[in-house]
């Protein structure tokens, strides 16, 4: 059994296709692992399907035709195809993706009990490639957070140290993969919500170019920034999932796909490639252990033939400020639809509609969501628009120009993924600004819409831990020009091989029976 769970997605899919292992056996092993979740990583797993009412919309009607007929997970879940590059592979899905008939909450109490009438395009593409929905993973409410402590359904625990956060907002997906509860997972990244938890959980997280994967069915937080991407144990699996999910979607006007598609990476060296290190990194606040891992990784790049070049991203330091105007502004509009009228939570209504709106939203949203709705509403208000939203858009344009300038000289930009390793639960919940700084290295790429991958690069002792505290994973971020995913994955693959994180940290890696055991 343990052998089955040790396989990467690409390995398992190949063995299933070759008839070397049974898809049923493989799927059952993962369903059992997911059901044994002790990290609060899942909000719903396939094991719970029997508890769902079959006629889920309450009106006596069953699911629309063409969806969810006779699957191992009941009549309401998206049916996987019999064959395809992911045939027989179960995948954990962040609860921000709609899944027909399966509860979908985006981590919010305001969507408690909501069972969508349709399935997100990214999930449909996975199931069309033969994948199964293994479960829906916990997350910060509406993807707002960097620690998963803003979930309406309780925090997720980091499998490396259950006293610490897994990062966020896709904390459940990251913890599920790192903790051996899923072979791979889907997440979303708006300002770092894939890369930062991947870093804190010691796995690979990829944020593709904005527009590479359809956003249809991804519950919107900040529409101009949100992008779907995979959590995997290695770069090859990230490429495999991206290859299946990318593409133009007629249901998403902003989707463009990746020209030429994506192939599994094979590169083993970095000869001739130029890696830009932002000069501003020297001034940045980051843990000594994180800096050490970053510098060691830079040395590895050089050993592989890569060239390190100093670049400058002069406006990146304003990224967080711009992000925390733009993202809440869009969120204030996107979240206005949760009003208790058509679905989800409804409170009050005895008096009149206004009272129902107020009570539903007061009781359904958590404090961070309310904070951002208020920030965003203010930023868009008449008389303040130019000073906030308009100004933030200008900063965004400047940051994108900074990257354009850099990429004229280098192939990639490299930084640490997160300024620290996983921090303790509760450590930053009273200080939103300190929490926001987690995204310092990831937000600029989101604002520029460019792809970036987080790789586990080493281990470091937490600065908030006592003597002898176990060392925790440190992530390394590589960013590339828009739609240069193939090149990015090739470089990441070569570096991954040289870093040998899995072998080096083997005893500590939770899914290998390390911390999790």
């Amino acid at each position, binding site marked *: 059994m343990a052998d089955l769970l040790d396989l990467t997605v690409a390995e398992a899919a190949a063995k299933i296709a070759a008839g070397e292992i049974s898809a049923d056996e493989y799927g059952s092993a993962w369903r059992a692992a997911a059901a044994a979740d002790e990290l609060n990583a899942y909000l719903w797993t396939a094991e719970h399907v029997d508890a769902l009412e079959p006629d889920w919309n309450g009106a006596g009607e069953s699911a629309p035709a063409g969806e969810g007929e006779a699957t191992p997970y009941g009549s309401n879940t998206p049916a996987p195809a019999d064959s395809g590059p992911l045939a027989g592979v179960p995948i954990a899905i962040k609860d921000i993706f709609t899944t027909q008939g399966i509860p979908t909450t985006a981590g919010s109490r305001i969507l408690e009990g909501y069972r969508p009438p349709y399935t997100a395009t990214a999930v449909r593409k996975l199931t069309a490639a033969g994948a199964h929905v293994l479960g829906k993973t916990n997350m910060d409410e509406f993807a707002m957070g960097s620690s998963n402590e803003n979930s309406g359904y309780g925090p997720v625990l980091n499998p490396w140290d259950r006293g610490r956060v897994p990062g966020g907002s896709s904390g459940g997906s990251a913890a599920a993969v790192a903790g051996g509860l899923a072979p791979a997972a889907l997440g979303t990244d708006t300002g770092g919500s894939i890369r930062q938890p991947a870093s804190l959980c010691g796995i690979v997280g990829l944020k593709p170019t904005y527009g590479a994967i359809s956003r249809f069915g991804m519950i919107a937080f900040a529409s101009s920034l949100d992008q779907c991407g995979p959590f995997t144990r290695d770069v090859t699996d990230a490429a495999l999932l991206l290859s299946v999910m990318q593409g133009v979607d007629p249901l998403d*006007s902003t989707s463009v796909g990746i020209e030429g598609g994506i192939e599994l990476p094979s590169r083993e060296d970095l000869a001739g490639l130029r890696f830009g290190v932002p000069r501003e990194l020297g001034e940045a606040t980051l843990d000594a252990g994180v800096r050490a891992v970053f510098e060691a990784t830079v040395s590895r790049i050089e050993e592989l033939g890569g060239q390190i070049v100093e670049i400058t991203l002069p406006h990146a330091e304003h990224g967080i400020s711009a992000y925390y105007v733009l993202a809440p502004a869009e969120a204030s509009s996107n979240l206005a639809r949760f009003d208790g009228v*058509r679905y989800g939570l409804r409170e009050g209504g005895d008096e009149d509609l*206004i009272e129902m709106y107020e009570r539903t939203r007061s009781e359904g949203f958590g404090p961070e969501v309310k904070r951002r709705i208020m920030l965003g509403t203010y930023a868009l208000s008449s008389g303040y628009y130019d000073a906030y939203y308009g100004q933030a858009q200008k900063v965004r344009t400047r940051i994108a120009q900074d990257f354009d300038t850099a990429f004229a000289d280098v192939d990639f930009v490299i930084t640490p993924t997160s300024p620290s390793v996983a921090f303790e639960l509760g450590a930053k919940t009273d200080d939103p600004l300190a929490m926001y700084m987690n995204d310092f290295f990831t937000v600029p790429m989101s604002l520029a819409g460019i792809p970036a991958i987080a790789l586990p690069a080493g281990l470091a002792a937490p600065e908030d831990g006592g003597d002898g505290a176990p060392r925790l994973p440190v992530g390394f971020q590589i960013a590339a020009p828009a739609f240069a995913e193939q090149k990015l994955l090739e470089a990441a693959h070569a570096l991954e091989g040289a870093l040998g994180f899995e072998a080096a940290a083997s005893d500590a890696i939770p899914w290998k029976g390390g911390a999790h055991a």
Partner: protein
Amino acid sequence: MPEELEAVIGLEIHVQLSTRTKMFCGCELSFGDEPNVHTCPICLAHPGVLPVPNEEAIRYALKIGMALGCEIAPRSIFHRKNYFYPDSPKAYQISQYDIPICGEGKLGDIRITRAHLEEDAAKTIHVGESGRIHGSAASLVDFNRGGTPLVEIVTEPDLRDAAEAAEWARLLRETVRQLGVSDVNMEEGSLRVDANVSVRPAGSTELGVKTELKNMNSFRFLQRGIEAELERQRELIGAGGTVEQETLHFDPASGDLTSLRSKEEAHDYRYFPEPDLVAIAPTEAMLQEARESLPELPAARTARYEAELGLDEAQARLLAGDPDQATYFEAVVAAVGKGAEPRVVANWVTGDLTAALRASDDAERPAVKPLADLIAAVASKQVSHAGGKQVLAILVADGDADVAEVIEREGLAQMGGDDGELAGIVAAAIDADPAAAEQIRSGNGKAIGAIVGAVMRETKGRADGGEVNRLIREQLGL
């Protein structure tokens, strides 16, 4: 003596496009169906859905823009207009704000400010005595209409009285109708005209405080609503008061205007660019297609009839307002050729023919040639006008009848002066009414009517009125 107050009126027109599906999803458009049957996750604003613009709606908007002489934006964008109300399931309307698809234009003498694309709201009904959201027993929503494509057309405040506003709105309706992009039915709400109304001292160039009038669901109500509001504003200012900016609701039953001002109407829409959509950049092919599909529109046709055919403005506009009739008219003009003036053809088509069709149930217009033959026959005095009307009645019943044959068969050939038959009838009529003859002789011109009438009765309308007059006067030695 209070100074004279001039009316200043601008219109905001919402045109529901008659596309097959909604603006941002695949649900079919409908009117009068059972509530909430034309809905999907997208137009119900389920979590995670995205809008995809209706290409046909964009093509329709381009046609409207070109028909109104608007500048077409090479690149226009959508904005979100944020407001909480159950008729808007997303809590924002996707509309256009600072860069509309159609910019400045002109229809007739009235300048167009802009025309932009947006989506219609759902229908809400507040059950209970208040009729408003506050204090209602329940609020019901029908999402069938939600998401219907709309083009909103805004004019400059160029209209100067209520009748002119209604007349111009009719021209706009006819123009849009001829494009085939909307049903433009005011009763059903596929054409909705709101008016911005203010007054100012005559000769002033500054604008007074305006009020916005809504819910006038016919051209008659539009005119009455504006008239009532102008009267209210003039009285208010005449009494030393000032007009307050507000939205007024027209009640068709009473003709009253009531203020809609309340807390829920105080909006800050927090417009920002819609991140779920990309810019609309029409290709040269799309522009060309829209341009080439434009029919000759009422304003242009009116001008052409005046300039080239010598029609007066009222007659030209009457014909141009009905494209079928105008096409028929032009065919008859061509067939008549030099046989009659276009003005005469216009009189036949809009006057006698329209009356004859109305008198005869489900009659169709006769073929072009017989009508042209008839008009030429009347013009050349082969048949009198009265006789011509009798022929027309036969043509309406049988559209392919041969006019010469009908005239012959019915004995309607005009009596000329040559064979003496008409002169004999005139002489007999004078003899039969010596009193009238005497009055005519003594200078009472009106008395001639009695003798003309007698001749016409005798000839069953075959005589030409002018000729009869001439003969009477000749025989009386005048």
